[in-house]
Every structure is written in structure tokens, then in C-alpha cells.
């Protein structure tokens, strides 16, 4: 059974993975930040068990970072509104556009008061978005579209590298919309391009020989050429000596409808069956089990981590919304010095993200996202609701596990 998770559910009143279920009162911290993180880190510190394991350190870390990074930036909060004025069309039009956009956001499905203008408004919003997140030279370049006959294909995403260097325009935003926008910046070149041309010439095309029917012994020669055969790789399954027989095998079976667990469908039921499935696979696959590294997938990875290390990781991860993405791993490496970069990443992907989905499911969130690195924000807004829901779930779990 997964040591870490089971322990914390039995002993602590809250799970440590997402940190959203907390029965501790919120402390008003010195440096205000997302109340979720603060309350749960306060809760972490308050729990005697957590303290015994030295979880006080993550809290100190956390508060230090928040102080350094966040405070100077809080003054920039109004950037979103301020930026609007710089866009095209003058302030008056933009004020109306902004009002319209807010109305749409507040009630997306309602019929719009002036349906005819919807299309024009939509275009304006897109144009505004482009203007907001591109510099002048980007817009200028796009205007002089490459002449059909002369210029090489237009490269819009090279501008990214330049944008990053001269990082004057975009500050470290603090609001969710800004953080999203900042991440969108990463994807701007993915989201937004003008029509481009396919390149033609020796710098673009592959060399494709003309077709000639291969001579009759060519295939035999091809099969016997070791340089080519090596590209077939190493066969892992069926194992050495066994031949693939496809006629009678059963495959495609899902899980059983019912089981004999005391609490079917509960977290422990699922964990139990997952462990059983892994054991069964180990039996069936033999050597292939290790070759495919099933022993370092999912919660198995957490077995290599102590509880304290996991707590520390969680605390650090919560800093991501305000920290530059690039520095997170450097910071994590520093504070979890015994872990290599690969081990950190492996833990993040196999354990952390998966547990996050688990807690999202518990909170009955409508939008579950295993990949959003900044999902924390959504929880912020629903803090009070989610606390009570998850607390009920938590109590139920505790009762089950104890009885």
C-alpha cells in the first residue's frame, strides 16, 4: 500500500497533495498571498505530526519567498486595465469593447443585445489581444506581408526569442488572467500567426530519388544488412523463444464490475486493485516488467521519497504561480539536494500531478485538468465551498479507515 498517502489520510485531517482541504482557520499572514497555500502551510505547521517530521521548514521557506517575490509586484496589479488604453482605436472604443467583453464573460450563453455587432466585436477583441501581446515591430512586420514572389517564408516565432530578452513590456503578473496571459505568451506563436508560405528550394525539401524498381535480390540484401536490421531495435515482447500467437488470446478486458472490498469504489479499493494489477502484470511479463520500468510508474515512485521530502516538494510547487517557471526546478534541486533532476521530474509527473487530479475529483470540480501547472488559482476562488465539501469527504475516509 502506498505508505505516504495512507498515513496522511489516517493521521492528518487533510491530505497534503493538493493542500486544498484544510480544517485549520486561515491565518492572516504577513505577506498576503493565495490564501490556500498559506492556510494549508499553516495547517502543515500546526499539525503535531507534521512538525515532528520537520515540516516547519517548508513554511519558513514559503514565507521567505512570498516576501521577496510578491511584495514588490503587488503595485503592478492594475496592468491589465492600464494596457487597454494603449491599444488601437482610442480609449472610448476600447472602454465599450471592454464592457462588452465583460458582459460576454459574465453571461456567455445569453443572447447579445445587438446581435449584428457580435462578429465585429469578436474581431476587435482578437485584434486587441494581438496588439496587447505583441510589440510594434511584430505588428509592423505582419503588415508588410511577404511579397508573393520575393521574400522567404515569414517567421513569426523567431520574435519570441527577442521578446524574451527585452522583457520590458510584461511584468511578473499576479492576477490569474495575467498569469494565463503570460503563459499564453509562451504559446503566442502557437496561437497566433499570419498566413505563411511553404519554403521551396534545397534548404527546405528532402532529397527524394526517382523511383526505380528494386532488383529481385534487393529485399534479401536489405534484410541481411546489419546496419539496417539494427534499426528494428530490441524485441521485448513476446519474450525470447516465444512466438506471437494472436488467434486465441484475450485482450481488451477492462476492470471487473464489482469487487469484494469493504468499501467498493473508495480510494483504498482503487489502490488495492491497482496494486493487484501490478502484481499480476509482474507475474505475466517477467523480465519485460523491469525492462518497461513498470516499477517506476505512478505511486510506486513515491515509495522512494520520505514524507518530509514530499511535503517539501508540495510546498515548493505552490510557489510556481509567482515564481518564474524556469527557476522552480533549480529551487527544488537546491532544497531537495539528495534528489537528481530526473528523480524530481519523475516524482512530479508520476505522483504529484496524479494526486492533484485525485483531489480535483474529490472537490467535484467540473473542469479537471491533469496538466494545468497553475490550477491552484481555481481553488483559490472556491476556497470556502471546497473546504467543507472536501472536509466531509475527508471525514468519511477517516471513519472508513479507522473502523
Amino acid at each position, binding site marked *: 500500500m502506498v505508505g505516504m498517502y495512507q498515513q496522511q489520510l489516517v493521521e492528518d485531517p487533510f491530505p497534503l497533495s493538493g493542500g486544498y482541504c484544510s480544517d485549520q482557520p486561515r491565518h492572516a499572514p504577513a505577506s498576503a498571498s493565495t490564501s490556500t497555500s498559506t492556510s494549508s502551510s499553516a495547517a502543515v505547521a500546526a499539525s503535531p505530526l507534521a512538525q515532528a517530521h520537520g515540516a516547519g521548514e517548508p513554511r519558513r521557506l514559503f514565507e521567505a519567498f512570498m516576501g521577496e517575490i510578491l511584495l514588490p509586484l503587488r503595485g503592478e496589479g492594475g496592468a491589465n486595465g492600464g494596457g487597454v488604453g494603449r491599444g488601437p482605436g482610442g480609449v472610448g472604443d476600447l472602454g465599450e469593447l471592454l464592457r462588452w467583453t465583460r458582459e460576454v464573460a459574465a453571461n456567455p450563453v445569453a443572447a447579445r443585445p445587438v446581435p449584428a455587432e457580435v462578429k465585429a466585436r469578436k474581431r476587435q477583441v482578437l485584434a486587441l489581444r494581438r496588439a496587447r501581446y505583441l510589440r510594434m515591430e511584430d505588428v509592423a512586420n505582419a503588415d508588410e506581408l511577404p511579397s508573393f514572389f520575393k521574400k522567404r517564408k515569414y517567421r513569426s516565432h523567431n520574435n519570441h526569442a527577442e521578446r524574451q530578452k527585452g522583457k520590458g513590456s510584461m511584468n511578473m503578473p499576479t492576477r490569474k488572467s495575467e498569469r494565463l496571459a503570460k503563459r499564453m505568451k509562451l504559446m503566442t506563436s502557437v496561437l497566433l500567426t499570419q498566413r505563411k508560405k511553404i519554403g521551396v528550394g534545397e*534548404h527546405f525539401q528532402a532529397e527524394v530519388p526517382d523511383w526505380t524498381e528494386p532488383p529481385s535480390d534487393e529485399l534479401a540484401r536489405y534484410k541481411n544488412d546489419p546496419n539496417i536490421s539494427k534499426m*528494428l531495435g530490441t524485441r521485448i515482447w513476446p519474450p525470447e523463444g516465444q512466438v506471437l500467437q494472436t488467434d486465441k488470446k484475450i485482450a481488451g478486458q477492462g476492470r471487473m464490475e464489482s469487487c469484494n472490498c469493504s468499501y467498493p469504489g473508495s480510494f483504498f479499493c482503487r489502490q488495492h486493485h491497482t496494486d493487484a494489477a501490478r502484481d499480476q502484470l509482474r507475474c505475466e511479463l517477467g523480465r519485460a516488467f523491469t525492462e518497461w520500468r513498470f516499477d517506476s510508474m505512478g505511486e510506486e515512485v513515491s515509495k522512494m521519497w520520505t514524507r518530509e521530502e514530499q511535503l517539501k516538494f508540495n510546498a515548493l510547487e505552490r510557489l510556481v504561480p509567482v515564481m518564474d517557471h524556469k527557476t522552480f526546478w533549480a529551487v527544488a534541486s537546491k532544497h531537495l539536494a539528495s534528489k537528481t533532476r530526473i528523480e524530481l521530474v519523475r516524482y512530479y509527473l508520476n505522483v504529484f500531478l496524479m494526486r492533484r487530479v485525485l483531489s480535483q475529483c474529490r472537490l467535484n470540480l467540473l473542469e479537471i485538468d491533469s496538466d494545468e501547472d497553475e490550477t491552484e488559482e481555481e481553488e483559490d476562488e472556491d476556497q470556502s465551498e471546497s473546504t467543507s465539501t472536501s472536509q466531509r469527504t475527508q471525514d468519511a475516509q477517516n471513519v472508513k479507515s479507522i473502523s
Partner: protein
Amino acid sequence: MAASGEGASLASAAGGEDGRRRRVSYFYEPSIGDYYYGQGHPMKPHRIRMAHSLVVHYGLHRLLELSRPYPASDADIRRFHSDDYVAFLASATGNPALLDARAVKRFNVGEDCPVFDGLFPFCQASAGGSIGAAVKLNRGDADITVNWAGGLHHAKKGEASGFCYVNDIVLAILELLKFHRRVLYVDIDVHHGDGVEEAFFTTNRVMTCSFHKYGDFFPGTGHITDVGAGEGKHYALNVPLSDGIDDDTFRDLFQCIIKKVMEVYQPDVVVLQCGADSLAGDRLGCFNLSVKGHADCLRYLRSFNIPMMVLGGGGYTIRNVARCWCYETAVAVGVEPDNKLPYNDYYEYFGPDYNLHIQPRSVENLNSTKDLENIKSMILDHLSKIEHVPSTQFHDRPSDPEAPEQEEEDMDKRPPQRSRLWSGGAYESDTEDPDNMKTETNDLSASSVMKDESNDDS
């Protein structure tokens, strides 16, 4: 639902009728899941590991041959990519201080395509799997080969693009061309398959066919009138779509077009890029396909009984990517797996339902019937310009305005050396081409095919 769809039955060496099992060879590199593009980056090779866990826990491995790929060498990669680009990739490290700033800019590595730890081994594994898959098909050892780590279709000869560094698809196709005269490439990633189209833009030995979102969307190529150039003219097909396309609409369009492509082009082998960002709810995509709808493309192509290579690609909502590629592995083999997922190493990723299949979203399908009819008719018109393959078993021929006999002869004997070697720059307009169809440009001006006009702004 017009389920599997019958393809035209063409005689083939691959064997196996639709519905029956195929010999499927699957490539998986066990370390692939540990490669990491960086915090916040949507591309996560980890999804391939999740898919593999599902495949094995469903027991599909019992019907497959599974191999660990051999990493592609520098020389293998240089068969397409330029020497200095490959040298850069091979030496690039994750330490930003050691990167040459000019090289970074020149090869387009940076934000979208970051230099991460293990970048080159990652590329080697991806390309090695696709090349291995091609060798398998060349040898006739499998009917269908699968490499979910492949399908990185944006990479260009001399630069990275769209999270892709080495274009494993081009390398695989170059290998296939040794024993297959005509290769059909189909791309159902939500993004245009520009890297592959560009590589084969001027040849008729590879026909590239991409279904993608067009308009204010990466990469910006893939307009319906981009049809290829030189000898490759009419051998590039682009099907530009708008947001929200659903299973039925997509299937209808896909089968209509592919059926015609098969008739006219008669490829000897098919390569299918199964980018999963065309699924509903994808983090970067905007289509509304279910896993079933997505897999129907594979199912339909499979029904033609031609050797096929199945590759990965985009896909940024990783639990859905895993679902999709697991299901498509099953479809390749010929198995319909249960909807209730088996317990597996990543089970909690699939909550709260823990099902294999996903529901489309309730979003508007912005592709109107009229738009789709226009697209269909333009595409079919493009296809009618291709000379029919000679010595074919088909007796039906489309009404062909060209002089068919002359072109038939050209195809029979060894084709002449490529007469035009474009030295560079954007290809010139159709007016230069002696085969120019005035009608092409007229069709363009007719009705606006694209819903979203904003791509013309700025």
C-alpha cells in the same frame, strides 16, 4: 454511426480483411516518459508512458510485437536535416549559459522549442522508432507499425518548430521510399503538418494530406490552395477547418476525401499521424472529436488493407492522449476494448469516471454545411488534376480535362530528372505552370470558404 466504413477493396499483399487481426509491431522506449520540456510547457512525453501502461494493462501486448527502438544516429538524421542543425542538436545542453545565442535564434530553439536535458537522445528515440517502423514495413514483417513517440511533424530541415526538433516522419518516409513507389501521408493533428508537406512539396512520390484548423492558428500554413509545386503540384492536400468540428462531420469529410485519394493515387503504403490535439477538450486544440471519432480515421484507412505506419504527434490534455492512443492501438490490432478502464499505474489520472472514452463538449461546430461542401468540392477538384496511376485495376476514371495519355507514358518509364530545382524563396504562383488551371483561381474568389476572416488582419 457509420461505424468502420468499408474502403474500396484493393488487392494487397498485406493480407487480412477488415475486422480480422493484423500483424502489428509497436515501438516503445521505456525512458521516454522522463524527458521533460520544462515547467509549464504543454508537451509532455510522459503521456506516451501513460498510453503504454494502458495498452499493457488491457492485455493488448498479447496481440502485438513490442520492441525497444534503436536510437537514430546523426547520420540517420542527416538524411533529411541539415548538417549544422544536427550538429547543434547533438551538442546542445540544457544549460542556457552554454548555448550560442546566434545558434539558438537560427535554429529556432527557445521558448516553444526549449533546449532541455536529454533533448538529443529524446529525438534519437523518437526518430529511431519511426525508422524502425519503416524498416519493419519494408521487410514485410508487419502489416501495421506503431510509434507513439513519433509524429513530430513541424520540424524543418534546418530548424525546430512547434515543439518538434527532428522530423521522424520525413525520415521514416525516406526509408519507405526505398521499397514503396508511392507513399500517402495523412495528418489528423489539429495543426497543419507543415514540416512533412514542405519536405515533400515538390515530389509526387509522397502525397501529403492534412486536416487541420486554419485561421489565426499555428503554424499558419495549410491553406486550401496550397497544392504543391513543380512535380509535386497537386500532391499536397490541405483541408482547412474551423473550431468545433465533431465526429460525424469529420468522418464524413475524411472518408469522402480519402476514398478519392485512394482511388486516384493508389499508394503502396500509408503513414498516419494521429496527433491527439484534435480531441475535444485539448489544452491547445479547438476541435470536438471523441476518441472514437478520432480512431475512425485509423479504422477507415486500415480497411484498405495497405501497409500502414501509425505515429503520434500533438496532444496536450495528457489523460485523453493516453486514452486515444491506447484505443487506437487496439483498433490497429482489431480489438474493441471495454470502456471501463482496467486498473493501471496511472488510474487516478482518469477520474472521476475511469472510462476509456470521452464525451465531446457542447461547443458550437463553426464548420457550416456550406463551408464543408465548398471544401469537399475544391479538394475533389484538386484531385481530379492528378493523372490516374497507370496499369491500375480501376476502370472508372474521373472526367479528366488533362491529356491523360501523355502523362501515363511519363509514369510508365523512368521519370525525367527533376527539371526545375528551385533555388529558394517562396514558390511562384500558378501562372508560371504550363498546367495552370484558370479555374483554380476562380474557385478561390467564389465563396469565402473560411469562417474566420481575422487571419487576414494585421
